[in-house]
């Protein structure tokens, strides 16, 4: 402990050590320093370094601290997996109408998809998926149904284009991420048929569904999703520099008042 306490004095700025070092060591020799004193010395050294450094140095040090914090946050954040299912929309061939051109199919697909989506992502459908797959157990215990649904919707990415429909689900459990992505796709296919049968009241709307077929692409894989390390570290660096510069400038404004 004695050695550690004396070694910790090296954390103080060199100029400070040149002035107070010998007497500081003398105090440490007179007292029976413990862990609390070691902590007190380290704290004092950091404050002294911080108070004596220039704006530039403080900003740089805070920037480095920001990078370190960002890296730690990235490391300790629980891993999540994104599973993406794709439904390809293709031109169909209808026996009594003959082949439909791709242009016709793609022209009609967004409108048809827009009719189906509200059924797939309705509160009822999503609640059923949450319960069936036992998603968000802790959130369900502590939060309301609306909160859990909000969370679920945030974890679902839905990107429709005329040629394909992409549905992703991000979740900490990789198997559940894949299962739910597939179930969302299956629900989409099922609802598309249901909507075509029950809701497409007029012929024009029915034609929209007859113009194309949906084909599910390969089973979705589970891709680990981590917070983007480079992005997070850049953010940490920027935030650290700004905070450091602000604090250093504020300190300069305050100090002359004493």
């Amino acid at each position: 402990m004695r050695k550690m306490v004396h070694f910790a004095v090296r954390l103080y700025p060199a100029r400070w050590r040149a002035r107070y070092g010998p007497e500081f060591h003398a105090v440490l020799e007179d007292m029976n320093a413990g862990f609390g004193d070691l902590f007190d010395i380290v704290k004092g050294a950091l404050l002294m370094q911080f108070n004596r450094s220039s704006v530039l140095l403080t900003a740089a040090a805070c920037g480095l601290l920001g990078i370190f914090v960002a890296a730690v946050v990235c490391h300790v954040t629980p891993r999540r997996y994104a599973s993406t299912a794709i439904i390809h929309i293709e031109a169909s061939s209808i026996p009594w109408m003959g082949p439909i051109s791709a242009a016709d199919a793609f022209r009609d697909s967004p409108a048809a998809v827009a009719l189906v989506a509200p059924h797939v992502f309705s509160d009822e459908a999503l609640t059923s998926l949450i319960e069936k797959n036992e998603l968000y157990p802790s959130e369900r215990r502590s939060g309301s149904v609306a909160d859990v649904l909000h969370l679920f919707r945030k974890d679902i990415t839905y990107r429709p284009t005329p040629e394909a429909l992409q549905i992703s689900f991000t979740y900490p459990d990789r198997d559940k991420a894949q299962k739910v992505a597939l179930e969302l796709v299956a629900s989409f296919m099922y609802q598309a048929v249901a909507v075509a049968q029950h809701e497409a009241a007029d012929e024009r709307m029915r034609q929209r569904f007859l113009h194309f077929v949906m084909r599910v692409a390969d089973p979705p894989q589970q891709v680990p999703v981590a917070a983007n390390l480079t992005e997070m570290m850049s953010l940490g660096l920027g935030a650290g520099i700004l905070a450091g510069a602000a604090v250093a400038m504020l300190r300069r404004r305050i100090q002359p008042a004493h």
Partner: protein
Amino acid sequence: MSDPTLLVLASLADGDKHGYAMMEDIHTFAGVRLGPGTLYGAITRLEERGWIRALNSTDRRRPYRLTADGRRHLQEELASLDQVVKAGQRRLKHV
């Protein structure tokens, strides 16, 4: 009263002392044990403000003395604390 700078000023009010002596004295009169980092942080600030000054010494244990400015500042701070103490006691009596 736990402001380290005020404790150091109060300790030096009755005579010159080096770091360890201040630490012991503060522990005796205030019941507060200042860590070495805290004590020297306070000493550094007080010397920069001209409220204490280091005396020449052949020993590494350098003594410090309260300056006239330091004494004035201490008197002001204590008067202010005294007001708070008196007001607090007066109010407690009325409860």
